């Protein structure tokens, strides 16, 4: 019996492919790798590129990945694909943006948050009114 590999290609948002293959080619960071069954365990990052899965029936399937992690076990290949375009400075910009937003939100006295506060105050006032009404009813009796 021919030896096969189990291949899983998953991204954070969905499972992309799962099945058996004769051979897998992936764009590793240090150059394209071809993985045959009984490959030694390897962990590497992926470059944007194409993952080719050579199926048992000789036909090939192609998957585009924009990066990610490749894990190889002797009979299992796992591609953890990125869905987002990643680069150090891009991530940095994202982080900065969320930080700024938080700072602005805290400094900002108007807008969304006054609304929430007003709502809370309104709820308090309504509760007080209810209490007063109930007291009045009781004293009337």
């Amino acid at each position, binding site marked *: 019996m021919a030896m096969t590999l189990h291949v899983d290609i998953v991204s954070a948002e969905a499972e992309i492919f799962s099945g058996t293959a004769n051979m897998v080619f992936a764009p590793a960071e240090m150059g394209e790798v071809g993985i045959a069954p009984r490959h030694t365990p390897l962990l590497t*990052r992926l470059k944007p590129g194409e993952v080719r899965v050579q199926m048992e029936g000789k036909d090939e399937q192609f998957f585009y990945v924009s990066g990610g992690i490749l894990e190889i*076990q002797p009979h299992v290949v*796992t591609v953890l694909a990125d869905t*987002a375009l990643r680069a150090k400075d891009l991530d940095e910009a994202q982080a900065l943006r969320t930080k700024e*937003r*938080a700072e602005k939100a805290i400094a900002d006295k108007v807008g969304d948050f006054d609304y929430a*506060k007003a709502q809370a105050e309104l709820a308090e006032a309504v509760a007080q009114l209810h209490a007063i009404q109930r007291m009045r009813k009781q004293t009337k009796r």
Partner: protein
Amino acid sequence: MAGAKEIRTQIKSIKNTQKITKAMEMVAASKMRKAQDRMRASRPYAEKMKNVVAHMGKAHPEYRHPYLIERPAKRIGLIVISTDRGLCGGLNINLFKRTVAAMKQWRDQQLEIDVAVIGTKAMSFFKRLGGNVVAEAPHLGDMPKLEDLIGSVKVMLDAYDKGEIDRLYLANNVFVNTMTQSPEVEQLLPVIGDDSDKQIAHHWDYIYEPDAKQVMDGLLMRYIESLVYQGLVENIACEMAARMVAMKAASDNAGNLIDELQLVYNKARQAAITQELSEIVSGAAAV
């Protein structure tokens, strides 16, 4: 007698409200199904990631990543996932209660807390409470992208790398079933080792390309992100389920109210007719 007309307008307005709550219930039901699908779709990634991290823990690499090393805690990072919109019952309130209880525990241990919030409800809550909010990601919508989370997670991971925080927790609602959502606070960093996979006990290690540090950096960063993403997707499923239940209760209550008012209305109408009749009769008798 209270005017029959007023009761009629009241019934009408309640009926309108009921129509809205019914529509919201149905929308929430269909969105919940989609959210559950997404929850299921993102699970394999997190699980595969967990496997790889577990393998790595077993593999005895020459390099120990700081994310795997426990260190004495002085300051804690907390990521709180809430919904963007209300009308979903006690979902957010329960989560905040659970979070505040956890925060109180940490405060009692003289630990300081940095908070990153996801969702507008958490933002306004911590704004009122006066927590130290370092990052905010509101308005992610019903179909969030992992991209939207990278920023907030990176703020926390950077803080961890620099030693500003020594532990990272995630607070979100966990989807048990449609009727039950349980708020939970769970530790993300340092990564707690999972010893369930006993099959690969013998010594072996990966080949790392280009080297262990860089691969692990990338891997663990994605691992944490995927956990937060999973939490977010799960929270959305919870939101939809909670909203569906809340709106169903509201529709039922509106129905009860309408029934009661209808009774009052019928009585009022009957009384008015009787009164009119007796007036006519007595008028005729007087002539």
